[in-house]
C-alpha cells in the first residue's frame, strides 16, 4: 500500500497540496484528475518520494518513503515525468535500458544473473511498448508519440512494483492512447500499483478502477469512476456544463451550454 496522510506540499512558498490523505492499493489503476494547477503533479511527485512533504506522512507499506534508500526506492517505484526530455541523441533501446540503472550492482546478485535479468526486462519492455522496430533509431528521429512510448518502456524496464506516471497519454494518437491505457491496466492486473495523472476525463472514466479528483490542493472526490467523475463533480470542479454519453467502458464526455 502506498499512502499519504495529512500531506501538505509547498512549492516556492505556495501551498499546492493541502492536507491530502489517500491509500492506494497494488493491483489497481488509479487516475488522478483535476484542473490545471490543482496539485496533481505535486501529489504524484510526493507519492514517488521526489518532492518532500512540508508536513504529513508518505508511507510505502510500513516504511516511510523518504527514509527508503534512493536506489531501493527507485527499484520499488518507477516514475514517468511529464516531459520526455532526453538530453543526448541516444537510441530507443539505450533509452529503455536506462530503466535498469537502479538494478546495477545490487548487493548479493551475481553479475551474470543480473545481466540476464537486464536483457530480459529490456526486451519485454520493448515488446510491451511495441518498440522493437525502433530499437536502433536515435530519439531525435522518432515522433512525439513514439518518444512517449519509449519513455514508458524505460519505466517498465525497471520492473517496479509501483508505476507513477504524469500524463503518459498526452501526445499519443487515439490508437496508441488506447493501447497504452490497456497496457497500464494490464500492469495493474499483474499486481502492480499504477497511479496515473490524466487530463482526459473520458480516458480516466473508461480505464481507471479508481479516480481521485483534486482541486486547489484538496482531494474533492475519491472512488469508483462513476462516482468520482459524476456530472456534479465535473461541473463543480471544472465549471463546465457536461454530460456523459455512451455505455460503461466506452463513455464520452459531451461539454458545452447546450448539454446543460
Amino acid at each position, binding site marked *: 500500500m502506498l499512502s499519504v496522510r495529512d500531506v501538505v506540499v509547498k512549492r516556492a512558498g505556495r501551498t499546492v497540496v493541502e492536507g491530502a490523505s489517500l491509500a492506494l492499493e497494488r493491483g489497481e489503476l488509479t487516475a488522478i484528475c483535476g484542473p490545471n494547477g490543482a496539485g496533481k503533479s505535486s501529489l504524484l*511527485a510526493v507519492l*514517488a518520494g*521526489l518532492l518532500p512533504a512540508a508536513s504529513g506522512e508518505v508511507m510505502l507499506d510500513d516504511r516511510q518513503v523518504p527514509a527508503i534508500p*534512493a*536506489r*531501493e*526506492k*527507485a*527499484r520499488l*517505484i*518507477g*516514475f*514517468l*515525468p511529464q*516531459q*520526455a*526530455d*532526453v*538530453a*543526448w*541523441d*541516444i*537510441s530507443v533501446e*539505450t*533509452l529503455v535500458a*536506462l*530503466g535498469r*540503472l*537502479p538494478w*546495477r550492482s545490487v548487493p548479493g546478485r551475481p553479475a551474470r544473473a543480473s545481466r540476464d535479468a537486464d536483457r530480459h526486462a529490456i526486451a519485454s519492455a520493448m515488446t510491451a511498448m511495441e518498440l522493437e522496430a525502433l530499437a536502433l533509431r536515435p530519439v531525435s528521429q522518432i515522433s512525439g508519440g513514439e518518444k512517449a512510448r519509449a*519513455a514508458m518502456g*524505460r519505466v517498465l524496464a*525497471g520492473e517496479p512494483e509501483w508505476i507513477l506516471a504524469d500524463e503518459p497519454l498526452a501526445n499519443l494518437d487515439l490508437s496508441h492512447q488506447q493501447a497504452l491505457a490497456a497496457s497500464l491496466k494490464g500492469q495493474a492486473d499483474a499486481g502492480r500499483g499504477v497511479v496515473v495523472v490524466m487530463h482526459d476525463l473520458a480516458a480516466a472514466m473508461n480505464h481507471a478502477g479508481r479516480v481521485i479528483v483534486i482541486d486547489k490542493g484538496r482531494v474533492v472526490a475519491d472512488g469508483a469512476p462513476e462516482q468520482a467523475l459524476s456530472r456534479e463533480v465535473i461541473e463543480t470542479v471544472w465549471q463546465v456544463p457536461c454530460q456523459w454519453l455512451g455505455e460503461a467502458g466506452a463513455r464520452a464526455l459531451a461539454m458545452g451550454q447546450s448539454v446543460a
Partner: protein
Amino acid sequence: MRRLSLLLLAALVIALPLSLLAGRVWIAPWAEPVPNATAILMELRLPRGLLAMVIGAGLGGAGAAMQGYLRNPLADPGLFGIAPGAALGAVMALFLGLAAIPFVLPAFALIGAGGAMALLAIIAGRTGGIALFTLAGLMIASLAGTLTSLAISLSPNPFSTSEIVTWLMGALTDRSWTDLWIAAPLTLAGLVVLWRTGPSLDALTLGEQAAVSLGVEAKRLQWWIVLGIGLVIGAGVAVAGIIGFVGLMVPHLVRPFTDRRPSTLIVPSALAGGLLVLVADTVCRALPMAIELRLGIALSLLGAPFFLALLLRLRRELA
C-alpha cells in the same frame, strides 16, 4: 566502446615515441647523432610528452563529465570557476614573487582551485539543483578573472606582469618530471572519481527529476562532480596554466563513435584529449618559429572556429 578506447590507446602508444623525435632539433635513429640526445629525450621531451597526455586526458575526461552533468554539449570544465580559481592562485604566487620556490606555484594553484570548490559548495551545495550551481560557477569564474586582472594591474614591476601574462596563456615548455609527479596522481584520481559518476550522468540524460527517480542522489553527485573536476582541473592549471577548448572539443569529436551515453564517453574522451594535447604540443615545439607558439594559444586558435561551427550546427538543428 571498448574497441574505441583500445584504438585510442594504441594511437597514444604510437604517438608518444614519435612526438619525442620532433622539436627544435630532430632526434631520429636514422638521422645524424645529436649531442646530448639522451638528456634531451629523457629530461625534456619525455616528461613533457607524458605531461601533455596527462593534461589532455584530464581536460577531455572532465569535459565529457561536465557536458553530461549539465546536459549541454556546449559545457566546458572551465564553467564552474575552478580553472580561473586555480589560475588566480598561481597568479598570486607570481605576484608575490614566490614562484621560484619549488612547489609554491602549483600549491597556490591547488589552493585556488580548492577555494573555488569550497565557494561553489557554500553557494549552491544545499539543494543539488544544477541551474543555481552553474550560475554560482559563472559568478566565481568572473570574480577570479577580475581578481587576476587586479593582480596584473597592481603587479610590482613589468617583469612580473609579463611573467603572469605569459603564464596565463598555458604551455608545457620546460616542464620537468616534478610537474608530472604533481599532476599525474591528482588527475588520475579525479578521472576515477568522474568515471564513477558515469551511471548517474546517464540517468541525468532524462532530466533531473527522472534521474532522482532512478536513484540518483543529486547532492552527492554534485559533490563527486566538484571533487573530480576540481582535482583534474586544479592539477592541470597548476602545472600548465589555462588550456581552453580541449574539454569542449574532445567530447564532441568522440561522441558520434559511442552510444552517446555520458558514461561511455568519459574514458575515450580522456584518451582522445591526451592524444590531441600531445599532438598539439609537439606541433608547437616543432614549428620553425623564433619564439615557441604557446600551447594554450594554439589550442584556442583551433578551438574558436570549432566552437563556432558547433554553434552553427546546433542552430541549424534547432531551426
